[in-house]
């Protein structure tokens, strides 16, 4: 049934730290690698080596320039994937029951044997988190690595989503956001974690941690300053070297 199952007590999800994400795309690649052989149909690519390649990926990393009023711009790397929303519109619009949310842990999944590939769930998702697979013609989305996190064939330390495991800068955290005492919940509390597009009413489970405040500083025209500095005569030893080289040359 694509009616939402009521509120699940357990809400497994990710907490993504925008302060430490370096935009390396390791999570993107490890996600594709795991999920092309994991849950459901492979994540196919079409025309992968041609002029116009396209393929299904479950995680995408953007980069934004954020400019506080009167200050210098900052760069923020921004991973984007399914937020396993509590009020998931992608679930309720599905005509077949293929798209569903699990009561046990809140994970939002697609039953690929039922999916008719109508695409309506992707239209309903504000976050672009669902991509149609160009070969299997079914909807693909983040499964929170449902085939890793409970997988007793894997060593304990590998029982977390592939993206979390791969992140070299510990910018991704996995846990139960329904438990206020869990590590991830405490992290969200401590760092002021926030929802994406709260006005869409989806109540995402995944949270984002804001970049830590930068030292406030007047915006400077560093381009011009840098050039001017380069033309100044150095002092001390470098100054002597500079003058000596001038004489030689």
């Amino acid at each position, binding site marked *: *049934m*694509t*009616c*939402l199952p009521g509120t699940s007590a357990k809400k497994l999800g990710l907490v993504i730290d925008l302060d430490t994400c370096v935009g390396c795309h390791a999570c*993107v690649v490890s996600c594709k690698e795991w999920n092309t052989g994991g849950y459901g149909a492979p994540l196919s690519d079409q025309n992968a080596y041609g002029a*116009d*390649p*396209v*393929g*299904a*990926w479950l995680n*995408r*990393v*953007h*980069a*934004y*320039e*954020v*400019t*506080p*009023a009167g200050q210098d711009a*900052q760069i*923020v790397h*921004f991973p*984007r994937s399914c937020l396993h929303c509590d009020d998931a*519109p992608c*679930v*309720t*619009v*599905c*005509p*077949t*029951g293929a798209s569903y949310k699990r009561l046990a842990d809140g994970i939002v999944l697609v039953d690929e044997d*039922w*999916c*008719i*590939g*109508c*695409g*309506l769930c*992707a*239209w*309903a*998702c*504000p*976050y*672009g988190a669902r*991509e*149609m697979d*160009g070969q*299997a*013609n079914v909807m693909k989305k983040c499964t929170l690595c449902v085939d890793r996190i409970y997988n007793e064939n894997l060593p304990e330390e590998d029982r977390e989503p592939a993206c979390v495991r791969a992140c070299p800068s510990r910018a991704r955290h996995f846990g139960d956001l329904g438990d206020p005492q869990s590590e991830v919940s405490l992290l969200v509390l401590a760092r002021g974690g926030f*929802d*994406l*597009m*709260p*006005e*869409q009413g989806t109540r995402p489970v995944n949270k*984002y941690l*804001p970049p830590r405040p930068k030292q406030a500083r007047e915006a400077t025209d560093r381009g011009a300053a840098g050039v001017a500095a380069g033309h100044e005569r150095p002092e001390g030893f470098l100054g002597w070297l500079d003058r000596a080289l001038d004489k030689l040359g």
Partner: protein
Amino acid sequence: MRPAYSIVLFTTASGAGYGMLAWLGILGAAGLLPMAPPFGLAAFALAVALVGTGLIASTFHLGHRERAWRAFSQWRSSWLSREGVAAVATFVPVALYGGGWVLLGRTQGPWAVAGLATAGMALLTVYCTSMIYGSLKTVPAWHNGWVSPAYLILSLASGGVLLSAVAALTAEAPPELTRLTLLALAAGLAVKAGYWRHIDRPDDASTAETATGLGRIGAVRALLSPHTADNWVLREMGYRVARRHAGTLRRIAVILGFALPLAALGVTLAVAGFTGALTFAAAVSLGAGFAVERWLFFAEARHVVTLFYGEQRT
């Protein structure tokens, strides 16, 4: 949003078919339509053909058509599922009413009840179609109070024009039908004008700042795309071809879809003699105009996911 031709065909053709059924149901039950056998036969055949074509076309964009039957199951939450159920259920009163009309020549008494049920179910189906789009909060150009009235009125307008053409070519166009169709066309034009004015005001609820949550720091500008080529999401929801030509296309939709049919049908009321040719011309013009209108409905609509990709507003 990408305007898939199958969806444009589905919504316009089935809309016109259900509009015809609605008029057949209401005006037939009221005894205001010609009872000549060729008219009934042709009218029901065309209406059912349009509805059927639309429904079949709607399955063309599915990745797995063989599983389409599963779409009838989630009527409790999904408007797409409700639309499927309503569309199939409508065939029951249509079969009864159409059978009574065409085979027995009866539209009164209990048959009139079937007629009213036909009209009610036809309009309910069109409403469900409109809500597939109207329920999507992610597309502000669809999630507003103009969309359902536009679908319903345009369905009645196109159904009225087609039914007038069938009547004029097989029997005689009843003036009541012509007048009501003129009314529907005028109302449709007003609703579309209101709709366009509404969507031309940018929707500020979601922005690049709320999408990324980085508005708490400052103004947000997309710097690097996550992928160097297109992806399915952008092809489906980042469609932007129409925007440059939107003004021209709207004018074409207004002229072909509303102005010419209004003029042609208006003339048939005033001048006798050319009714068949004029209503036929009105139907052809309206078909082209409404296809452009429906294409624009998709092509002009922006999805909030584009806010992650550099759009500031939707």
